[in-house]
């Protein structure tokens, strides 16, 4: 295991302050009662128990509006590639790190994404148990983090912290902070395994999740689910785009031109497959004309192994954000409950 043990949580705060020397450190902090990604400059102690914010870090890596090219009144066109500031996200939960693995795979060599991703240093923080509405365990995305991270933190009950590293930048940051560490010995490894087991055991028993996932993944693709089931769910989708906006693995965008005088900017903005206009083709043909068709398509992409990412994990990371955002109560757990015969 590429990890070591820090004697105390204070050592983590030294790492955070060291990161803040040449990066903006952004961490979940409670603002007006709710966790929000906040620029902290590494000050104070890490908020170890603050839950994942409703708006994740997707907005930094894939902004809701990204200018891609500009033209001027001579007709000359130039690409607009971002020069993002260097940031460190400290306190990323396993679900969000699993989602970033999807984004990395999806955007691949996209220069806008690569520029932002290269400027971001990722520090994970393992969850000690289930959060409200989260079901990362059932979709194999948590509660303990796997790649990609630069560093990952696991708090031990005795006050010590296990730090794992996943990149050269992570190792350099650990060294640069000058904190004392010890190797992970057998006793600590056992303790970690017990913590992981305890965290897993803390999840509520939701057999409908496994049943729903099984139906979604039965051959042929999604064929175990009758069309009528989707058409019954469809009218509950108001096409608000809340799920796709908050989903940390949703990547669809459209392109808009914003002319100003004779010049202007082309930007890509977040789009949503649940909008009727998203799939309507120039001919007027629509491959998913009914709301139920669009809902089926969306959840097929999230919950079917046909769309598993490079790590083999589903497009849904179990963060539960869509269940909060969906006015129609058909977020992931809501849909799995419907598919799994729970409602």
């Amino acid at each position, binding site marked *: 295991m590429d990890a070591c043990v820090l004697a105390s949580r204070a050592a983590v705060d030294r790492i955070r302050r060291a990161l803040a020397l040449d990066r903006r450190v952004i961490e979940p902090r409670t*603002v*007006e*009662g*709710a966790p*929000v990604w906040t620029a902290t400059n590494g000050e104070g102690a890490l908020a170890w128990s603050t839950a994942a914010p*409703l*708006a994740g870090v997707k*907005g930094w890596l894939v*902004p*809701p*509006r990204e200018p891609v090219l500009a033209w001027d009144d001579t007709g000359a066109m130039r690409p607009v590639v971002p020069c993002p500031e260097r940031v460190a996200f400290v306190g990323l939960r396993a679900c969000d790190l699993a989602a970033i693995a999807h984004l990395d795979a999806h955007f691949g060599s996209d220069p806008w994404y690569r520029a932002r991703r290269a400027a971001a240093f990722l520090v994970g923080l393992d969850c000690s148990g289930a959060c409200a509405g989260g079901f990362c365990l059932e979709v194999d995305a948590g509660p303990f983090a796997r790649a990609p991270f630069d560093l990952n933190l696991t708090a031990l009950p005795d006050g010590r912290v296990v730090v794992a590293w996943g990149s050269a930048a992570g190792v350099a940051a650990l060294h640069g902070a000058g904190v004392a560490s010890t190797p992970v010995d057998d006793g600590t490894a056992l303790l970690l395994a017990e913590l992981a087991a305890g965290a897993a055991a803390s999840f509520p028993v939701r057999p409908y999740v496994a049943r729903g996932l099984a139906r979604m993944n039965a051959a042929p693709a999604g064929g175990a689910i009758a069309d009528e089931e989707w058409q019954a769910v469809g*009218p*509950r989708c*108001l*096409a*608000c*785009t*809340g799920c796709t*906006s*908050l989903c940390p693995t949703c990547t669809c965008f*459209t392109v*808009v031109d*914003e*002319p*100003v005088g004779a010049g*202007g900017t082309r930007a890509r*903005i*977040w*789009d*949503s497959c649940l*909008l*009727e*206009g998203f799939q309507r083709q120039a001919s*007027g043909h629509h491959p998913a004309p009914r709301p139920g068709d669009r809902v089926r398509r969306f959840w097929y992409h999230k919950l079917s192994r046909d769309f598993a990412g490079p790590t083999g994990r589903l497009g849904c990371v179990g963060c539960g954000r869509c269940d*909060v*955002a*969906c*006015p*129609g*109560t058909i977020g992931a757990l809501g849909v799995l409950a419907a598919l799994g015969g729970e*409602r």
Partner: protein
Amino acid sequence: MTTTTCPFCAVGCGLVLDVAGGRVVGVAPERLHPVSRGQLCVKGWNAAQFIASPERLTRPLLRRNGRLEAVAWDVALAAAAEALAAARHEGGPDAVGVVASARATNEDAFAAMKFARAVLGTNNVDHCARVCHAPSVAGLRRTLGSGAMTNPIADVDETDCLLVVGADVTENHAILGARILAAHERGVPLVVVDPRRTRLARAADLHAQIRLGTDIAFVNGMLHAIFAHGWEDRAYLDARCENVDALRAALARWTPDEAARVTGVPAAAIVDAARLYAASRRGWLAYGLGVTQHVSGTETVIALSNLALVTGNVGAIGGGVNPLRGQNNVQGACDMGALPDVYSGYQPVDDAAARRRFEAAWGVALPSAPGLTSLSMQHAAHDGRLKTLLVIGEDPVVTDPGGRFVARALGRLDCLIVAELFLTETATCADIVLPAASFAEKDGTFTSTERRVQRVRRAVAPPGEARTDWEMLEALAARLGRPMGFRDAAGVFTEMAALTPIYGGMSHARIGASGGLCWPCPTPAHPGTPRLHVASCVRGRGRLIPVDQTPPAELPDAEYPLQLTTFRLHHQYGSGSMTRRAPLLERENPLGLVWMHASDAARRRITTGACVRVRSRRGEVTTRAIVSDDVPPGVVAMPYHFAEASPNLVTNDALDPIARMPELKVCAVAVEAC
């Protein structure tokens, strides 16, 4: 990240604006907002787009040689002040008028009403509540003593029956509509009364698909059944209501069979609706513009009030009579007194004591006779009595009825001044255009449909030289020699609260710290009032007023055989000036559409997507058909967001005699393939 209030419908959802590089780039829902609880509708999710639109007005415009040219603020303000002064000189104070905005803040609306009354000396001030819920204000004041929504949105979770009349809630108030759907899924009966098969109607336990404009017959039929079966709340009627016997006597002829004959809904369904609503312990009654936009709008509101009173639902948790206000701050603009007959807090201008309070505070003599409504101002402009009009953030050329009359009337003004975000259809007609700040660029408050006063916070600077309404009105007042003394939004609010008892205990600081307060909130220690009429009605006893069915002003005939109604789409808002600048929203629906039933379409050889002409006695419009069973045979329906194909070129401007509301919801038309 700036936490603020959504600028679209009146549900008042909590919105967090994401700012980068001085521009609002995205939005997120406010996780712990008391009403929206981390949710937004598609308009809210797309709120960032219009704010930074390159089409925003950034400089004042002045018409010179027939063209609108960019000028300095000084030049525009001097021209506006001169036009207002000249009109007053020539025709007296009532030769000028102000149309305030239901989209701007309370502070802007209060400044607009003070500007009209204290600076211009006229009560000619109104806003678009005239074409949405003026009948609610008039009707519920007569029966209960207050024209506002009686119960909070959260009562949807506390009720035993949901009754929705003439409101397409999932599309127009999506976060509330979804809450209704969720309550229904938990087993709460849902009754929908609507000529169209809306999303809620399709889900409902009972959809009463009434003929257009027959709501009173339907409600009277329900009331007849309620009394016939003893489902009325006898103890409540004895203790809290008056005029019971007169109502019972007037209902005698409204047997379910008679109501069925008029409404087209089977008598058994009318009795079922009555049983579901009245036999439930509590019923949450909500209604929308399908009730108000009729010549019988005020009387229909009264009929619904009768229904809620007879069943003991007024003042109860999970009950109430709940008009769903349309625009983000239409409740607030009414509360602020942007109405021709009342000051802020519904204090009548013809009440000497109220007038003296405002005169003392402002140090000027104020006019005592109620002024003109917005539609009357249009007629006065047409007749040459009104010479200069200031329109703030409204687009009556698109949103008001009566064919091309509005544009023609505005064209006859000596001077039309428009404060706007964009060059709307109305602004295009103006002599002077003042660039306004959007909700993301100013501090202040909005009041939601449930009377919740919430903070609006500045996230970015206005584009170019754009200003908030109260700032430009203050500058204009100074030019006219009567400065209003406003320095900042909080100061405007403080002055308003001191003069407005229902807001008396509120301040920006208190509202911001509490997540919003529902009026009345008369003192700094008062917790606000989510439910009205709890111990007794605001007016004392609830007044039952018999009302009779009045047919629409125009019925179909051989020449115009179909009935046209209007509605709103989930993806658009008002005249579309904001939502049509959001690419995803604009993409969702083709421009301008008319929904029609397959039987009517087939007879005319019309298919979905076909170009059609919709004609009435007032004008015609060319649009495209959608063949759908959303509407019954004989009825066609058009959304009003699109200036390219505005149903208001054909709608009827016949007025409700009490509230002066035009009958936008029904007129007779002919439809033919182009």
